[in-house]
């Protein structure tokens, strides 16, 4: 493992150097500063804004949902997360279209409408999943509450 690790790290350093050289050769200093700022901004946006927001939402959901079955909270969070990730990709697309397109075959759809419809579909599927889950636990609780039949005293638990 030691040799493998050494080789991986050496290859990795070579890659970094190559990337830096390509950048230096192909971009002027102001452009390189621009790249650095973008990399920094990406870290700050993710670690400083997006991730704390996710932590906060998870806390708020748990506080607000004390009386709600935990699995239902999780299902709702999956639905919201899915919509959020889809929006992350599509909202810039909606904006890019407002800037004007080179020709009608570029960004041909009404992405805003489609995103709104997706949220509706996700909301409906999430609700369905919650209902299905609640029905299932109600059934299994009802099953467990039934008195055990004398013929098979060990079953039903």
């Amino acid at each position: 493992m030691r040799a493998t690790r050494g080789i991986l790290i050496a290859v990795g350093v070579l890659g970094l150097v190559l990337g830096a050289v390509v950048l230096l050769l192909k971009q002027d200093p102001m452009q390189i500063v621009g790249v650095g700022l973008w990399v920094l901004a990406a870290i700050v946006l993710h670690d400083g804004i997006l991730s704390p927001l996710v932590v906060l939402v998870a806390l708020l959901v748990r506080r607000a949902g004390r009386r709600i079955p935990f699995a239902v909270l999780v299902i709702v969070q999956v639905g919201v997360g899915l919509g959020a990730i889809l929006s992350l990709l599509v909202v810039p697309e909606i904006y890019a279209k407002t800037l004007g397109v080179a020709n009608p075959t570029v960004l041909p759809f009404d992405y805003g409408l489609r995103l709104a419809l997706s949220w509706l579909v996700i909301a409906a599927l999430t609700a369905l999943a919650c209902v299905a889950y609640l029905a299932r636990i109600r059934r299994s609780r009802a099953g467990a509450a039934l008195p055990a039949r004398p013929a098979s005293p060990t079953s039903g638990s």
Partner: protein
Amino acid sequence: MQRLLSDLRRVVGAPARNPRSAVVLGRLLGIAFLVCFGTGLYSHFLQEPLPWMRFPTQPTQLYQFTQGLHITAGIACFPLILGKLYAVFPELFQTPPLKGVVHLLERASIAIFVGASLVQITIGLLNTYQWYPWPFGFREVHFALSFVIIGSLAIHIGVKLPIISRYWTKNRARMAERADAADVTAADADAPASATDAADAPAFDAKAGVAASRASASGPAAHRPARGLTGRLLRWIDGTPAVAEPGVDRRGFFALIGVATAAVVGLTAGQSFAFLSPVNAFAPRAKDIGPQGVPINRTAAAAQITAEDVGPSWVLSVTNGDRMLGLTRDQLLAMPQSEVDLPISCVEGWSQLAHWKGVRIRDLAAAVGAATGAALTVTSLEKEGGYRIMQMGPEYVSDPTTLVALELNGETLDIDHGYPARIIAPGRPGVLQTKWLTSLEVS
């Protein structure tokens, strides 16, 4: 500082934020990165070949596939990288933050890795939207960052190899989690509650796990309660109910990343892969639209092609040293015609299979006495643009499916598709399928 970090680490802790999640998602993300890197390099060298490079012309849809895969895998990286970063987020608050020079370098390499990866997939996506809100060149920086990312990926795997190996399979992960829990129990025998915490969310580093669980087990009693806003915030967080069912929480996390990856891929890959075209809801391009059912990037108007340029006086000049032919469109149409089904495959990932009819380029090269193995310099009428002059290697010149196309899908070529004549060759990026031809020169 130390205390704030361990408080933060405790606060952001969650059942799915553990080494096993990081390994599972890291594997998928690593594969996606390697696919993007390989297909990206292929696309790069197709456009800027080194002198000795020759490329396959069969299967004719190779580039359509590799570049579709490049863009699709890039899109899949969004949910995967968000999931991976979610799993390792508590590591941001590791204590001590720096243990020495090597540790500093390691953390710096991870910062570069994360930042460069996020920028890479973001500018790649925005490029497919043809939106360029950055102060640098897209192609150059996308190319340079690919080496930075693959380099830091190799370093990352090298550094984390022991953890990766410990958590590679489900069984090994379970053993590792039990061992971590035992470590903690042994090291912290008077606080058995912390052992179950550690079992729920094993730490990335057993020693750090012990330290963290000691810190959290001894809890606020061990140090002064935090004052001010931080204190109030921590109390508010501590008053929040704990994750009731860690297993359900973990499954929800993986369900989210799985469904989100399937959704972003499924709803966009139809721009590249025909079988997904019916569910293409969000891709920046769609199949079967545009003049003659084929999408366009550069219109005749954008390339400043005038009606006069392509009027009756248009001729295609074919030269080989002193030998020169000037062919009108009618003369080209009078030559033996070939029909081929070839895709237009854009570097932006979209592609469109189409039916082309025209003159084999090798017949035109032979007409001016070009030797076998000759290459061509192809020039467009467009006034400016990086692809006005295109080099065509001998593998494409000699291929029987490479045409000077005159018709598209059974009709005279639309002016936006390169009327009077354009190139169509197998397995090349769309930017090299030169439109509005003016000359072919044997080189």
